[in-house]
């Protein structure tokens, strides 16, 4: 009996110890690995695709070598990144593909996240076939003819339908609804991660096999596996409002940056720099190719780009 009593007392007192000393705001906690050697630290979130790695690599290089910050990076998907940004776990998200729901909640209602301006890159999602296939069958690039070619895209996974390959679950996609609403004889197969999707596309391309895939630009893989977009019914403002009834193409989205609201106010030079950070699709692709294709470390790739584009990034520092 005595043991149980002591256990209860111990539990109660440790609880009191934990809770007794005032409020602890979780939003004010940084990573335990930050500021390790007494430097000012900025934490950037990296999304799982290489373009996002390129943004972060270049920003990190300039923050570290020109402005004297220490930079921590955290790999996290977009939606959780919004949450982490709101809590101050990360200071900036450099490439967002449009999340109106999150924007409403955090930027407009809670005001814990501040818009950081455009990245300068325009993103576009679409359906793609490899260019070697488009050359063989020029009419394949219109969705109306896709059913005619469904047999070409059959795989064991899609059974007796054609396979439309989708990627990571974190990406914005309406493909299931599109296939249904456009009455296409296709099965959406989710690769589950971008790594798996890219690996599969490269294997297909090596053997010049036909494939149809959800893909997006800017993306470094276009330089390795040239692809042609399949035309879907044109995008009109609001045609994707009801996710069940979508029957149109994806929009062209100017990619946005977001900063933690406190960091945006008090982040000093780092925040000012990240707000001005703005480059082009070509710039981003240059760095991405170095990372993904030449297998350079993001740091080396960033250094190479920074060394040869001084006029571009000088403007971000003024």
């Amino acid at each position, binding site marked *: 009996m005595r043991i149980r009593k002591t256990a209860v007392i111990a539990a109660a007192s440790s609880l009191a110890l934990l809770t007794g000393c005032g409020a*602890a705001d979780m939003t004010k906690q940084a990573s335990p690995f930050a500021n390790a050697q007494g430097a000012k630290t900025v934490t950037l979130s990296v999304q799982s695709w290489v373009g996002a790695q390129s943004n972060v690599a270049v920003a990190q290089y300039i923050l570290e070598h020109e402005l004297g910050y220490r930079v921590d990076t955290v790999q996290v998907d977009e939606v959780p990144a919004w949450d982490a940004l709101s809590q101050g776990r990360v200071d900036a998200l450099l490439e967002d593909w449009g999340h109106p729901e999150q924007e409403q909640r955090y930027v407009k209602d809670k005001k814990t996240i501040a818009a950081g301006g455009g990245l300068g890159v325009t993103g576009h999602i679409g359906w793609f076939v490899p260019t070697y296939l488009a050359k063989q069958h020029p009419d394949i690039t219109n969705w109306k003819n896709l059913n005619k070619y469904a047999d070409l895209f059959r*795989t064991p996974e899609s059974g007796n339908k054609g396979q439309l390959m989708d990627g990571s*679950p974190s990406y914005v996609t309406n493909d299931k609804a599109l296939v249904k609403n456009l009455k296409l004889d296709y099965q959406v197969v989710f690769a589950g991660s971008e790594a*798996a*999707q*890219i690996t599969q596309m490269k294997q297909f391309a*090596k053997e010049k096999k036909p494939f149809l895939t959800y893909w997006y630009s800017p993306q470094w893989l276009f330089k390795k596996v040239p692809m042609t977009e399949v035309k879907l019914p044109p995008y009109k403002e609001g045609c994707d409002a009801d996710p069940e009834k979508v029957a149109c193409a994806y929009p062209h989205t100017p990619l946005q940056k977001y900063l933690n609201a406190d960091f945006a106010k008090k982040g000093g030079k780092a925040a000012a720099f990240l707000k001005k950070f703005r480059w082009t699709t070509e710039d981003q692709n240059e760095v991405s190719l170095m990372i993904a294709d030449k297998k350079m470390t993001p740091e080396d790739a960033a250094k190479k780009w920074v060394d040869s584009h001084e006029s571009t990034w000088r403007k971000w520092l003024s």
Partner: protein
Amino acid sequence: MATVTANPPRLGLPGLLKNRAVQKLFLLALAAAILVPLANARWASGTWPSALTVDFSEPLAKASDWIIDNRDSHPLFLYFFGHVSNVVVIAVRAVYLTLLAVGWAGVTAIGALVAWRVAGVKLALGTAAAFLACGLLGMWVPTMQTLALMVVAVLASVVVGALLGLAAGLSDRMDRMLRPVLDTMQVLPAFAYLLPVVLVFGIGVPAAVLATVIYAAPPMARLTSLGLRGADKEVLEAVESLGSTARQRLLTARIPLARKELLLGLNQTIMMALSMAVIAAVIGAGGLGDRVYQALASVDVGAALAAGIPIVLLAVVLDRVTGAAGEKLGAEPEPHSGRGWLFALAGVVAVAVAGRLAGRLDWPDSWVVGIAEPVNRAVDWMTAHLYSGVPVVGGTADWAGHFTTWVLDPVRDGLQALPWWAVLLIVAALAWVIGTWRTALTAVLAMAAIGVLGVWKPSLDTLSQVLAAVAVTLVVGFAVGIAAARSDRLERALRPVLDVFQTMPQFVYLIPVVALFGVGRAPAVAAAIVYALPAVVRITTQGLRQVDPSVMEASGSLGATSWQQLRQVQLPLARPALLLAVNQGLVLVLAVVVIGGLVGGGALGYDVVFGLAQGDLATGLVAGAAIVCLGLMLDRVTQPTERRAKKGA
């Protein structure tokens, strides 16, 4: 066996019904004959009837919104979770800064000297080599981050686990309450509870540490309770007769008697915690796991391997050192052991101070060896040559295609075509024949819960993948296990290979698996086989080796051939071990269903990944719960009566 003798065969029944299994099936058939027409008349449908599902998506979405909106204002968060999170951050930071301050030379020296004192010279050299290898791979700082996180997580798990184990070991009521919880935790895939933890604590180290503690504490609790309950009754009576109080008995007799189990618990906890290192990276744990995860994004197997090797090395070293410590416990204490520790301490201080004075706290950049490029070239070569067009046997892509069309599709379609009550009946029959009516009831309820959650179809899809993967794992695992049990040399050669595959983070081999088998369910099955195979091989080998050598000799002297010996003596006698292998195979395969979702496995695994990526609690949590139910069902179905009985002892 007890259950068999407890029910003497009833007289007057036909001979067939004397068989226990047939009796059970007969009763079940009787129950089915009454219930099925009723159920079928009421809810006539092939899949789980929609009238019997409960939609959890709205309350879950509401709960998720409430947490996000109140996280920075509600007292529960401010005064409880906030402090928990704070303590974790401060603790991890303290350990991390200490590790950095000691420097690479100091950390290596500490590791080696502790290993020397606990486990001898050979392991000390191994430990030092492992730490240096982490540095050489250019992973020193991430290794220290992971180590800091592990130290805190393991300490917390040990404290929590030991307290729970103490409670369960001392009180029968606590034991009855905790046992089903711990049983469930064992089949709970780690991914399933990342989402709720993240929702409360946000991305980052606190969430990662807590997820690790939830995952790693149960074995400690289990083994502590086992150790306390297993203490020799006579010794305890002797201590009691000396007039000691309950507390004295606990401290002087029961806990010291249980130290072997306690150390085994520590060992298990460390291994579980390390296996979470990479999974926790998905929610922002940083360290080695994050490097693996980032390498995955740029499809860079070599870089992923460079970060994966330190995890394997840490795991193997920690496993061996704690294992050796456990074995040494029984032995006589060495003379001058105090002096040995003193030497060790002096050595550490000397090395650390030397490192500091030399200004070499960080691992020097020029000492880093890049392995990424050659590894990538090797993987490219392999996948290019094996993928397709291999003469006679066909490429791996063809195998994967055939496996999907001829095995996975029929099994999945077959399961999904079965009426829902038929699935429940099959589960009940299997579980009852192998186990008891209790296990059968739990299994049926778990399966029914899946239907109620409204994920019947994807769950059967996942089940078909699990069954296919387990079948292949068992065929290969038993074959290799039997071979290893018969040849010492093969067993020794296999040991490091099994070690590597058991501890290598699964993210590292995702890309090669896709490159070989394409995207879909086939690579998901392949990844599961790679993960579950080592355990099955180990258990099989051990089970066969434990067969009494005198029985083997006797059968040998009677002129049995080696094949006859195996089939008629060894395998029947090792039956409990083989059943355990089946059980473990199932649990392990299910644990990587979520990983399968990352390579196109679809179904429940994909839903969990989707929930995490989109912050969608409804999808992710329901799919996670369904995986747990599947795990419970499969565990109970394959749980032989003997194991139950042994646990109760």
